[in-house]
């Protein structure tokens, strides 16, 4: 445990520029994870109600008309 925290401290937090890099990269990653996760929950709650759930019917129909 101590080894791991030492590793984290020495690698990421000890020098200012690595710490800044860690902050920015982790902010980006957390944002992506949060948005993806919340979208997934939202879509599962509203399954079948949103346009993307019924879009396939109408796009398919339009393509059939073209043929």
């Amino acid at each position, binding site marked *: 445990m101590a080894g791991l925290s030492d590793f984290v401290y020495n690698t990421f937090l000890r020098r200012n520029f690595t710490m800044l890099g860690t902050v920015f990269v982790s902010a980006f990653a957390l944002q992506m994870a949060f948005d993806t996760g919340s979208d997934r929950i939202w879509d599962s709650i*509203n399954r079948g*109600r*949103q*346009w993307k759930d019924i879009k396939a019917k109408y796009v398919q129909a*339009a393509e059939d008309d073209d043929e």
Partner: protein
Amino acid sequence: MLARSALRSARSAGAVARNAASKTTSRSSSTSSSTAEGAASSWKTNALPAGATAFAIGTVAWYYHLYGRNVDAMTPAEEGLHPTSYPWAHEKWHKTFDHQALRRGFQVYREVCASCHSLARIPYRSLVGTIMTVDEAKALAEENEYDTEPNDEGETEKRPGKLSDYLPSPYKNDEAARAANNGALPPDLSLMVKARHGGCNYIFSLLTGYPEEPPAGAVVPEGLNFNPYFPGTGIAMARVLYDDLVEYEDETPATTSQMAKDVTEFLNWAAEPEMDERKKMGWKVLAVTSVLTALSVWVKRYKWAPIKTRKLVYTPPIQTKSPITSKLPKPDQKS
């Protein structure tokens, strides 16, 4: 000292009251027989508080009678019947619009409502990705003609509609709309759900609330129709939704209430096209701020822990045999 004087004053006040009471009894005893004395004295003792209470209650009652009652500017008929509250799924905090219903509702609007009501704030582009595909919206836009920009001679020509155009209105202007509808203006429906008390419930109730014939005693002016939900109960719009009026492409049975429900949900979308995104964003904001709140509570407790848990110890100075205060002259020692 203070307590004792207060006690005494209370007692003296009681004495005054008793004196007054005894005075009246003595006076009454001089005029009436001694058997009535006890009853009369108790009644007269309570006369003042009882009278004051009755006066207070009477004043409040009179004031409430005068100012406290509901003052309605309109009679219940002018107010209109309050709409039933329906369990709209899309009004729940975690539900989006049902876009299949929006599509059906737009079909109802186009085939039924659009002959009189405009939807002037909705451009074709906003239908894309919510109600129809790009190709469908483009095809729909091209069915209508719009003015071009003025050309070199300053004349405008007609061109087929584009996605950026707004839905065409059935009448050129409000005056034309009034002239065509017996003096009544069919309102624009873009924001109608927001613009009426009751919102979706009101519109649904209005659309489905036309009775077969007006109830006995109801006065329906010439050219108007009876609808209890409409303020004033006389509405220029006749009942328009009948079973199987439209044919849904998804083969939903087109009952009156189904069409009313779909078009109401569609009109709610027209008034609040941002609702889906707004609700999702709201949940995200709640999630993030709850984490931040928990963090800030933890930080506060962390920072305050040494302050909250420290112990203050007061060590009094060592007492000498004769404290310095004993040497001071005491006030009022003589008296």
